[in-house]
């Protein structure tokens, strides 16, 4: 490294450390822009319709009311939607964890013929844009006879190439000696996987759980093509219908925003609890 010329002004040195207050101000303003919409959303859901129209920005409703929520539950099947979302999310999450860790382990640690080909296919499949699959998935679901059923909603979502990737990478980071030890002690492949390696992969499994939860709770276009029975509507599909004026013609913002708020709560809770992991993983997972 070249010697620092004695003429370096002290100003330059300080740039490395402390941040000027302007940066903080900018950040606070930007954060406000990002947070305000949600605050407005919550506060509007407690306003009356006329007030929402006249005073959309106000964060504190003049006449605080839960009328919008009452209407939501009375005139729509919101509870049913919530139940359906919960069922689908639960099954998809558990299913994905199971299948994806099996596959990831196989790709990482079990030498079998065709492993390379399968891995290449998994990667190739990740490249297919999901919207292109909208029509074809409907056709396949139809042919299989699982259209308009819970099976049709859950099973196609169990296919998750990205998850396989994440698990494979994680398993590869577990030292081989652990498995060798298990083999020597006479454990078969499955036992090695189930009782020894999988528990060690708890962080990665947790990641898959979180990503699957978010992914299936927020899924929309799959449910559009997979079902038509009103009793199978999920929160996303139901709120989408509300937005396009199902309940009655006319803009009922407090009601629609209230619906949106409620459906965001579970995801928000999971997010805030597992923040750090989610953000680390999103960066890592997406990067791969």
């Amino acid at each position, binding site marked *: 490294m070249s010697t620092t010329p004695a003429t370096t002004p002290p100003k330059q040195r300080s740039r490395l450390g402390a941040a000027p207050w302007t940066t903080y101000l900018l950040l606070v303003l930007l954060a406000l822009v990002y947070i305000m919409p949600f605050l407005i959303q919550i506060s509007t859901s407690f306003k009356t319709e006329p007030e929402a129209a006249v005073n959309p920005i106000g964060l504190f409703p003049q006449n605080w009311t839960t009328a919008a929520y009452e209407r939501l539950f009375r*005139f729509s099947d919101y509870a049913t939607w919530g139940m359906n979302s919960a069922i689908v999310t639960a099954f998809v999450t558990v299913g994905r964890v199971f299948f994806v860790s099996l596959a990831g382990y196989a790709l990482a640690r079990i030498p*079998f*013929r065709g492993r390379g080909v399968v891995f290449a296919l998994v990667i190739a499949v990740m490249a297919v844009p999901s919207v292109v699959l909208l029509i074809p998935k*409907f*056709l396949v679901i*139809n042919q*299989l*006879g*699982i*259209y*308009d*059923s*819970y*099976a*049709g909603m859950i*099973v196609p979502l169990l296919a998750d190439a990205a998850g396989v990737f994440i698990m494979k990478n994680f398993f590869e980071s577990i030292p081989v000696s652990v498995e060798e030890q298990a083999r020597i002690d006479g454990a078969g492949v499955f036992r090695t996987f189930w009782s020894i390696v999988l528990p060690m992969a708890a962080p990665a499994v947790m990641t898959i759980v979180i990503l699957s939860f978010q992914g299936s709770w927020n899924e929309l276009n799959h449910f559009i*093509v997979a079902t*038509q*029975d*009103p*009793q*199978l*509507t999920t929160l996303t*599909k139901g709120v989408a*219908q509300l937005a396009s*004026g*199902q309940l*009655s*013609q*006319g*803009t009922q913002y407090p009601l629609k925003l209230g619906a949106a708020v409620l459906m965001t709560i579970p995801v928000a809770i999971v997010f805030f609890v597992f923040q750090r992991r989610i953000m680390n993983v999103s960066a890592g997972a997406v990067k791969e």
Partner: protein
Amino acid sequence: MKTVRHTRGSRRLSLAAVTGTAALLLTACGGGSGFEDEGGDGGEQSSGGPITVLIGSSGDAETNAVTDAVNAWAEESGTDAKVQVAADLNQQLAQGFAGGEPADVFYLSTDQLAAYAGNGSLEPYAADLENSGEFFPALEEAFTYEDEFWCAPKDFSTLGLLINNRLWEDAGLTEDDIPTTWEELRSVAEQLTDGKTPGLAFGPEYQRVGVFFEQNGGGLVSDDGSEATVNSAENVEALTFVQDMMKDGVAAWSSDIGAGWGGEAFGKELSAMTIEGNWIAGAMENDFPDIDYQVAPLPAGPEGEATLQYTNCWGIAADSDNIEGSVELVDYLTAAEQQMAFADAFGVMPSVEPAAEEWKEAYPEMAAFIDSADFARNLPTQEGANDVIADMNAQLAGLKGGNPQQILDGVQQNMEAVVSQ
């Protein structure tokens, strides 16, 4: 060598395992419809199979009325029947047909008739109905395709002019001022316009603004449907008339003033008048009960009176498991008595002539709608016409700042393609 032999053997084994798993998974998925049971697994033609009725409802009133009627029939006849309200009727119909499990009975609009009749999805039962001779001729015509009467019209509606009485009187207008010509309409709209509230607002679609086309002797296609007349001089005149009103602020699209449809604009008093169909009665009663309003026939244009009419029919799927039962159900639903019950519940007009007088007596204030039936016109029903109209609606959104001739020229091209099929 050793490893190769064993690898080959174990490969076969693993292949078998994979196929086995695949087969297992497939049967698990394909056997039955998972957790949900679909009606129609009876499979017999003649009787017994439960009937699904798919409707696109305008609101609770309609849903309840249809459900009550279908339940009553189900009890009487002993056949299980269930009403399903579609979130998106077109989409669910298409999905149902594609999946081979369509609803047995469903609402079918005039613009979908050609497509579904053409691809064999429908059962042409209407001519065999008990009361097949009693439908209004214009309605029967609307549902005739390739010389066959496909499905029974379930009701119909025409467009009329709705006037907010309070705003009318506030502007100093009286009964005599109810417009009967275009000039009068314009002058009345001017007097009713107040700042940002236009005198007249209606939905941004041909299905509303088309009345002006017809009133000027124009229309999208010629009378026999063989020629596209979209950019005729009469139509350009009509559209220019509407555009002038919009430019002067006395008329507006309901979407431009923040309403979802003409009825909402009218009910929230975002405009003093609107052009809507008689279905608005239910919405007004439920959502905007405080508005005092009256209905007048639309003013006549230079070529006379005209309005548009809308009708749906009860379609029966050719793939239905219980066609006989479905036909019986439709018979029941189109009987004069039942149609009057529907009229009472959600404001539609019966499609059978015998019930017309009764309706007029029961709803004298809606008389304008049923009287308008005399000069009501249908929208073009050729296959693909509704796509052209949808595209036209997209362009109409920019009418205020646009060029009517150009807009219509563009649509003319598309309509020609449709008509020449």
